[in-house]
């Protein structure tokens, strides 16, 4: 039992957060709760504090919308949180699609798809940044928020809160794509929102930190990591994971049996280094 907790504690906490957020949003629409109203595009905490999606704001800006103060404040709050503290934590702690893609990755491993397709991945992880730029260009040309009308994240999330329709189809497509086509395909290669948070969260404080002296080179962390190129320092150097593409999901920390990975604050690490 202790081992179960220690190996899955962050996964458990993440699922609690992800589902908890969904429940709060759902309750707001279904039963009139006012803890968290709206949805991930824009919401209100306790009916007062606004939060808005900064990527949606960029698209609105490109589409030529006049931006309201309320929206700017909401975006400021969200953007500052991920910029200063969370990093790309949205992807692994909030986004409901994360549960779909995690399931796909788990199934992929289970049925041995990885052996079939081999290690070589047919697509670049830079694709998401191209799609990010493309979404803004199309928003500007078409005068509508391009990704917001297509986003399977919003379809699923909004679907759960406001009524699903065919919203499940988007999630199923992603599941099948991740399972049969590309390992970590959606979250790791395509999703422009993930790309956006990778850029925004590049300098955030909370970081996974590697302690090389404890590492036994078992490589469990690299197997479990959905963005495993960010763990290039494993067994080589004691460094924090500095890539913005790390989602702070902490799977690497909990699968490590040697205490070679942990969360810490970036500035502390840097100060300590300077002190030495």
């Amino acid at each position, binding site marked *: 039992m202790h081992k179960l907790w220690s190996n899955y504690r962050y996964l458990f906490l993440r699922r609690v957060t992800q589902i908890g957020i969904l429940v709060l949003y759902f309750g707001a629409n279904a039963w009139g709760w006012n803890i968290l109203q709206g949805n991930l595009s824009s919401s209100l905490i306790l009916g007062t504090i606004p939060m808005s999606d900064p990527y949606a704001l960029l698209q609105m800006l490109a589409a030529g*919308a006049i931006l*309201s103060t309320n929206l700017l404040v909401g975006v400021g709050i969200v953007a500052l949180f991920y910029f200063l503290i969370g990093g790309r934590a949205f992807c692994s702690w909030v986004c409901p699609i994360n549960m779909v893609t995690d399931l796909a990755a788990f199934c992929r491993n289970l049925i041995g798809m990885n052996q079939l397709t081999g290690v070589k991945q047919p697509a670049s992880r830079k694709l998401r940044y191209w799609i990010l730029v493309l979404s803004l260009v199309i928003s500007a040309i078409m005068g509508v928020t391009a990704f917001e009308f297509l986003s399977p994240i919003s379809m699923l999330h909004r679907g759960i809160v406001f009524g699903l329709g065919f919203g499940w189809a988007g999630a199923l497509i992603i599941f099948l794509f991740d399972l049969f086509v590309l390992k970590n395909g959606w979250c790791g290669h395509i999703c422009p929102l993930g790309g956006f948070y990778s850029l925004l969260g590049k300098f955030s404080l909370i970081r996974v930190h590697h302690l090389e002296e404890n590492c036994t080179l078992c490589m469990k962390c690299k197997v479990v990591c959905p963005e495993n190129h960010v763990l290039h320092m494993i067994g080589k150097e004691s460094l924090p994971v500095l890539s913005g593409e790390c989602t702070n999901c902490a799977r690497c920390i909990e699968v490590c049996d040697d205490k070679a990975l942990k969360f810490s604050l970036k500035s502390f690490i840097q100060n300590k280094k300077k002190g030495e």
Partner: protein
Amino acid sequence: MKKLSERREFLLTMARGIGLASIGGLVWSAYLDKAVSAPLLLRPPAALSESDFLATCIKCGLCVEACPYDTLMLAKPGDERPLGTPFFIPRDIPCYMCPDIPCVPVCPTGALDESSVTTHGVLDIGVANMGLAVVDEESCIAFWGIQCDACYRACPILGEAITIEYSKNERTGKHAFLKPVVHADACTGCGLCEHACVTKKPAIFVLPNEIAQGSVDTHYIRGWDTKDENRLEKAQEIKTTTNISKKKAVDSLNSNLEDLY
């Protein structure tokens, strides 16, 4: 295979990138073009014009949650309406025109524009313009001569938005028609009439203004209306010249009718 020169490799990579982006961009744009076109959609009160609304609405659903009657919905995949944007179907649940308009001030982006439903600094649902009720005279039983004033009674601004016009029923010679007439300047498009209509498929229904209304060119002036007549004061003379054919009309008979085509 011969190894490509650095220059060729760079150019090919660029070309491939541009090519892929073009494919993606065109497919994406084509999808969007269809995905956002739904001309028969009814928006919440105070919505910006459809094109501005599509750029500004963030699809958060706060208006939907604020609506006490569950009138508003967010479009789901499969609804064939712009995904995630709010709309209502008056035959199911109309807009009950709350005096405090709870759906509008909660909008975080201004896609629902509070100023468009404010008169003298106070929220006023009476000036909202969600659409316009239209009567199908063929299926409206009041036009058959059967007494029915369901829409008139249901109208929250009865007497202004819908009035009843009396006229003689010549068929029977002794009865009256009580025909509902909608007045566009007062109608807010709330849809309570459509909701109340007794026919199987409603004979009075709300359409977006752009669909329901025509528009008149500015050179037509209602001379009996002083306000309209005043427009003439600013009118400027425009001289136009038309080149009239110098030929005689009879000549056309000898031209094999060529000049008629």
